């Protein structure tokens, strides 16, 4: 397996690189495309759009998801919107500005070439979605409406009330459904991929388990695409759907694919605070709320008055005070840290003191309740249901929560991992957001990868591959299937008495304390030790009743938790090695006098790509140096 990381970046002026590249890469003859089979693991925005588009081009696609329908992938939950450099609002937006904002927002830890391409294809995404019948918000003239999102000073975010992810995913799902009906996509629902099969150094298939019957199946293909989403659930509590997991990516890592920047985690500033130990997940309140809501804490520590009893003069609108030019619209990492700081210093509100106010009082006075309801009605309802408090009458309480993972499997410009034939798209890869993702950019990236990048770049690999050259007769398939069986048996034979969920929760606490919003050398080292001993205990005392030959939710969950228990440790190693602060990775030892993240471009202007070295061995790291030719690294300032 190639340990060198060749990112295959194109040459020329940045505006022309994607065009040049598309011209230079090989094509598969249209008549031959149907001979190639591609496996796509995932049916979220990335997986559904890629599967549909590749099938339209003529490839045979096998698509997998663990939910009962591809329409339920976690992308469905995205709320706020999707960015595109359309400049419909005539406010000075351009491809270059979106590129610039994204590179800067990522704190100069992403690849310029990938980001530029992302900004370039962003407009096509909106066109495509509208053509599919996605009902984006419109103004009274019938044209598309936009809003602004954190980290940007232009309005480039397209939205469908607070349900943008749902509408985009249903669009991609409809395109996918059309291909399923044509027989060009073979859809496998309630099926979990448990291993990648590598033949002569190339990814040529997967091992899957049917979650309804327990059947283990070997699937061969000419290439494998992972679109399996992010791993925020390593923290147990996150805004991700309950099933989101790292298994697909982690299995690929164990088979030789490099995991890049695993410690880059996004903590979202506006989530509903934790209410008790029973909590199974955290609920996001879309960032779009920061357009009209103002964030504040009382000026007096431990002030227990009702928010309405606290006069204006005794409120600290700390974001507006500290960042006058961006105010409440600073990027997520900055907003989250500021909230944590306010709470650490004792200004937090609510029963636990871990919360700050997000107040719509001024906006309601200015615009009226109806206007606010039209913009955010469903979010207000959701908040009301969960907290039993009416946000039209009293400010919301919010607190940061784990939301997104910028890290993921390493890919080159073609979205191919270091394992030839294995492509990774959407949140599962690491490529475009650097150390911090801007709001409304994940939907953009997932659809850019799936509709407009991968379907071309995969042809370059396939053109050199003999279609159907590998079948499940190859011994690698039998071996991988045996490994899978052995692992399931191992989980079933522990016969302990604590649920996998219990271990997951414990892992989450360790991760939050040692590798969460603030990290330091001692804490990370401790975290690694604690995870190692928790993992040991898991394998001695987890309870997995039943068998592998039936629907067994405990078994499926235990397998995912087992992978989280290893991945969490990898994240800590990465965070420990990166002795600087950047974006969402805040090392307490490295901060400016004002408490902002302090990068070290001399030593850390690189991607950290980790390689698996074997059971209980410390992983090793290779660097991919990052070059900034267009957006010169500077201390980010949102003042």
């Amino acid at each position, binding site marked *: 397996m190639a340990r060198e990381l060749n990112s295959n970046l194109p040459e020329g002026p940045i505006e022309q690189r994607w065009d040049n590249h598309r011209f230079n890469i090989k094509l598969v003859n249209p008549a031959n495309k149907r001979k190639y089979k591609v496996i796509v693991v995932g049916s979220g925005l990335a997986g559904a*759009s890629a599967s*549909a588009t590749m099938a339209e081009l003529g490839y045979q696609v096998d698509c997998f998801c663990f*939910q*009962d*329908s591809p*329409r339920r992938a*976690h992308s*469905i*939950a995205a709320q706020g919107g999707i960015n595109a450099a*359309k400049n419909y609002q005539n406010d000075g937006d351009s491809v270059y500005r979106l590129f610039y904002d994204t590179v800067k927002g990522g704190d100069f830890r992403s690849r310029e070439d990938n980001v530029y391409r992302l900004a370039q294809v962003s407009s*096509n995404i909106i*066109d*495509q*979605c509208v*053509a*599919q*019948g996605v*009902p*984006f918000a*419109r103004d*009274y*003239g*019938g*044209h*598309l409406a936009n809003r602004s999102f954190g980290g940007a000073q232009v309005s480039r975010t397209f939205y*469908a*009330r607070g349900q943008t992810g*749902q*509408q985009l995913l*249903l669009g991609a*799902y*409809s*395109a996918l*459904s*059309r291909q*399923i009906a044509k027989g060009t996509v073979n859809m496998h629902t309630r099926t979990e991929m448990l291993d990648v099969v590598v033949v002569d150094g190339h990814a040529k298939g997967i091992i899957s388990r049917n979650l*309804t019957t327990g059947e283990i199946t070997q699937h061969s293909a000419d290439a494998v695409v992972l679109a399996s989403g992010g791993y925020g659930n390593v923290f147990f509590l996150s805004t991700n*759907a*309950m099933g989101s997991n790292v298994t697909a990516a982690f299995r690929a890592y164990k088979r030789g694919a490099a995991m890049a920047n695993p410690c880059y985690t996004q903590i979202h500033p506006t989530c509903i605070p934790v209410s*008790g130990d*029973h909590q*199974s*997940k955290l*609920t996001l309140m879309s960032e779009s709320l920061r357009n009209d809501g103002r964030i504040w804490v009382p000026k007096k520590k431990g002030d227990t008055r009702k928010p309405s009893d606290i006069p204006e003069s005794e409120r600290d609108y700390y974001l507006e005070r500290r960042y006058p030019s961006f105010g409440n619209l600073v990027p997520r990492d900055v907003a989250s840290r500021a909230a944590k700081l306010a709470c650490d210093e004792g200004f937090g509100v609510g029963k636990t003191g871990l919360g700050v106010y997000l107040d719509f009082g001024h906006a309601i006075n200015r615009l009226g309740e109806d206007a606010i309801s039209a913009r955010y009605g469903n979010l207000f309802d*959701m908040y009301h*249901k*969960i907290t*039993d408090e009416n946000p039209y009458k009293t400010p919301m309480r919010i607190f940061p929560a784990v939301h997104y993972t910028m890290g993921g499997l390493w890919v080159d410009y073609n979205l191919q991992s270091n394992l030839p034939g294995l492509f990774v798209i959407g949140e599962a890869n690491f490529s475009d957001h650097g150390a911090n993702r801007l709001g409304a950019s994940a939907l953009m990236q997932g659809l850019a990868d799936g509709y*407009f990048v991968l*379907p071309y770049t995969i042809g370059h690999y396939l053109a050199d591959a003999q279609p159907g050259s590998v079948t499940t007769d190859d011994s690698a398939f039998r071996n991988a299937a045996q490994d899978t069986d052995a692992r399931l048996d191992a989980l079933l034979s522990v*016969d302990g*008495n604590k*649920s996998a969920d*219990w271990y997951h929760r414990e892992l989450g606490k360790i991760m939050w304390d040692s590798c969460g919003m603030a990290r330091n050398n001692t804490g990370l080292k401790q975290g690694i030790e604690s995870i190692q001993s928790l993992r040991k205990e898991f394998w001695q005392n987890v*309870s997995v*009743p039943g068998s592998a030959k*039936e*629907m067994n*939710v*405990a078994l499926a969950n235990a397998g995912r938790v087992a992978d989280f228990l290893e991945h969490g440790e990898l994240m800590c190693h990465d965070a420990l090695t990166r002795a600087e602060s950047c974006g969402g990775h805040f090392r307490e030892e490295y901060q400016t006098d004002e408490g902002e993240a302090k990068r070290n471009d001399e030593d850390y202007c690189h991607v950290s790509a980790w390689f698996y070295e074997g059971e209980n061995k410390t992983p090793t790291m290779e660097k991919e140096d990052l070059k900034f030719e267009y957006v010169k690294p500077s201390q980010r300032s949102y003042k």
Partner: protein
Amino acid sequence: MTTQNMTLNLKVWRQDAPGKKGKFVSYIAKDISPDMSFLEMLDIVNADLAGQKEMPVAFDHDCREGICGMCSLVINGKPHGPDEGTTTCQLHMRRFTNGDTIWIEPWRAEAFPVVRDLVVDRSAFDSIIQAGGFVSVNTGGAPDANALPIAKEDADMAFDAATCIGCGACVAACPNASAMLFVGAKVSQLAKLPQGQAERPERALNMITQMDKEGFGACTNHYECTAACPKSIPLRVIGEMNQDYTKSLIFSGR
């Protein structure tokens, strides 16, 4: 409304596999905080079962935010429980009272066979969408998104129909297990938009034909569907679909 922690008597449908005989099993849910969601309450029951090395109660769920449509459950005879416009995952225990008995069953419909315990197979919904719930447009070559203005009113009506989460509560609530609200939502969304016009005549016909094939019943105007719908999809979508359906029957001569 309760503020103290509660003890509840659950009667949960347990069934090992499709076609196997199922039965209600009693469990006691102890120390249930009113701030918990219904599914978090079931998590607690399952954690207890794990301690006793017993199979957890299988139920579908994923987002726990009321948007993925994965959670189901008929609670005390009502799909998604007692609250209007609320999915099971967004139902909170403060809705219940200490000592309550709660009956928990899967969706019951011929087209949604039970897979295990509270999990049902809803793939029939996917088949209906595959029969025509899309606009036939390949990736690439779409015109500029603002080239074709769409009146806000139409866009909003399309949106209201498009919010369907495909959970199947409409079917579970209907005495005939009809899927008309689900199918109507998709037909109506696309009928309101210019992009949906080209295939409009066949769409309703093909989707309704598929619906019948999947074993869903007919609509005889009980209106239970819209009452149970967690997204309050309006009944008008059924009327709109019927119009399209009738028109295409006439024009296709079927």
